[in-house]
């Protein structure tokens, strides 16, 4: 390493180490000279423990995460009859995260409430309020009159204001049908030439119509977490919930990575990514160093959007043709590359292995340059 490069790295010891140096200095009452010496020693050790330039950390990361993951398949439990929300765990969840699916199989939110609402009663009331309610929720009896082409829905549970809401929404979404309100029930009159199949379809549509609550939130339970009463939900709608008055918008969390990316930004999504991978592994009793997970998260968020690890993401968008072809779908990539007249610069690892050349890893990354007659 050149003198200059060394100086750059020496200038920024991580904050945790700096803090530790400070605390040791305070405890042992070191003077300036001793402190300078301590810092010098710590820096030496720090530099020694760092990865050397050219180290293939990607491969080390891949190994460190995949090896424990092979142990996961056999150990997936289901917690039958437990209170709370059933979440996808273990290997399926891990695959889901690395594939960067648009919607996780069980999207989930943890909603923290503001101090004012942080009681059991208020939290329960809030949970009840945000649960998405469809016409189906209020309906106690549904009957279809096939001769007169009528659908009658009895709504015993609905209060007067909710009744109005339902009628208004029905009228808005069912154009061309007659919606009549009767005693605690709604009658929908379809045209006389409607077939039975269409009538059934209409019934389904009506029952699935959204009335109140927060859309997409299928269930909400109140859980005590330390001092706080938090609401855990199945289904997530972060954007809407963060705007609500009762919600502590500094802590509320969603496990839907793409949703977090669009509402709070790529850096927040990266944090969720790390937390989700970490939690999934920890929950299975596996211990993977956080540094490896950070490498994956950094690569997945490199371009400003979350990319999957695989054919359509990180590996599929490499610039070198042979690297792509060597990964998956060889023929497709080679044909496309020849049509487009692409050039492979042989700067990557995979393509160089293929043609039996020195790979740019470790010492293979550097070349020596002799500077004859140059003074230090």
């Amino acid at each position, binding site marked *: 390493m050149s003198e200059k490069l060394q100086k750059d790295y020496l200038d920024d010891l*991580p904050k*945790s180490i700096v803090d530790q140096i400070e605390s040791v200095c305070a405890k042992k009452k070191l003077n300036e000279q001793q402190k300078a010496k301590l810092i010098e020693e710590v820096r030496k050790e720090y530099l020694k423990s760092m990865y050397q330039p050219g180290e293939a950390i990607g491969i080390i990361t891949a190994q460190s995460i995949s090896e424990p993951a092979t142990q996961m398949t056999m150990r997936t439990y289901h917690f039958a009859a437990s209170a709370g929300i059933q979440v996808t765990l273990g290997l399926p969840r891990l695959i889901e995260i690395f594939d960067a699916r648009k919607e996780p199989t069980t999207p989930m939110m943890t909603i923290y409430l503001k101090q004012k609402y942080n009681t059991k009663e208020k939290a329960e009331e809030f949970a009840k309020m945000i649960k998405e309610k469809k016409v189906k929720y209020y309906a106690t009896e549904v009957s279809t009159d096939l001769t007169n082409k009528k659908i009658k829905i009895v709504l015993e549970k609905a209060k007067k204001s909710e009744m109005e809401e339902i009628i208004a929404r029905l009228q808005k979404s069912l154009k061309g049908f007659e919606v009549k309100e009767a005693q605690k029930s709604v009658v929908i009159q379809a045209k006389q030439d409607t077939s039975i199949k269409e009538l059934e379809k209409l019934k389904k549509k009506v029952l699935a119509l959204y009335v109140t609550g927060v859309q997409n939130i299928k269930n909400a339970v109140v859980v005590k977490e330390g001092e706080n009463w938090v609401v855990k939900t199945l289904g997530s709608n972060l954007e809407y919930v963060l*705007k609500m008055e009762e919600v502590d*918008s500094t802590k509320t969390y969603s496990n839907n990575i793409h949703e977090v990316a669009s*509402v709070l*930004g790529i*850096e927040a999504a990266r*944090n969720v990514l790390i937390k989700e991978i970490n939690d999934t592994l920890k929950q299975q009793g596996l211990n993977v160093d956080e540094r490896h997970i950070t490498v994956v998260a950094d690569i997945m968020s490199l371009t400003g959007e979350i990319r999957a690890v695989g054919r359509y993401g990180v590996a599929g968008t490499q610039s070198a043709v042979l690297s792509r072809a060597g990964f998956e779908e060889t023929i497709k990539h080679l044909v496309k590359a020849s049509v487009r007249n692409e050039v492979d610069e042989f700067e990557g690892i995979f393509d160089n292995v293929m043609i039996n050349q020195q790979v740019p890893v470790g010492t293979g990354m550097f070349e020596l340059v002799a500077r004859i007659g140059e003074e230090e």
Partner: protein
Amino acid sequence: MLKQENKIDVLSHELVPKHYIVSEDEKQKVMEKYRITKMNQFPQIKASDPAVRAIGAKPGDLIKIIRKSNIAKEVVYYRLVVEE
């Protein structure tokens, strides 16, 4: 219907680390430090990213992000604002 406050304060959320716009001077220093010759060597962030909009950065700006880390407490990261 449920009540809605108007705006989400993105930067106050605990998942969002601190974002700063880097001055032209500092930008040169950063590029020198990390031996960056082409701008596309920087990690990127979209101009439409909520955090970028919150601090009012434009495409071409460099953003300094101070992340919290369990290992090093604080980590400095840079991202270049790019158009969609």
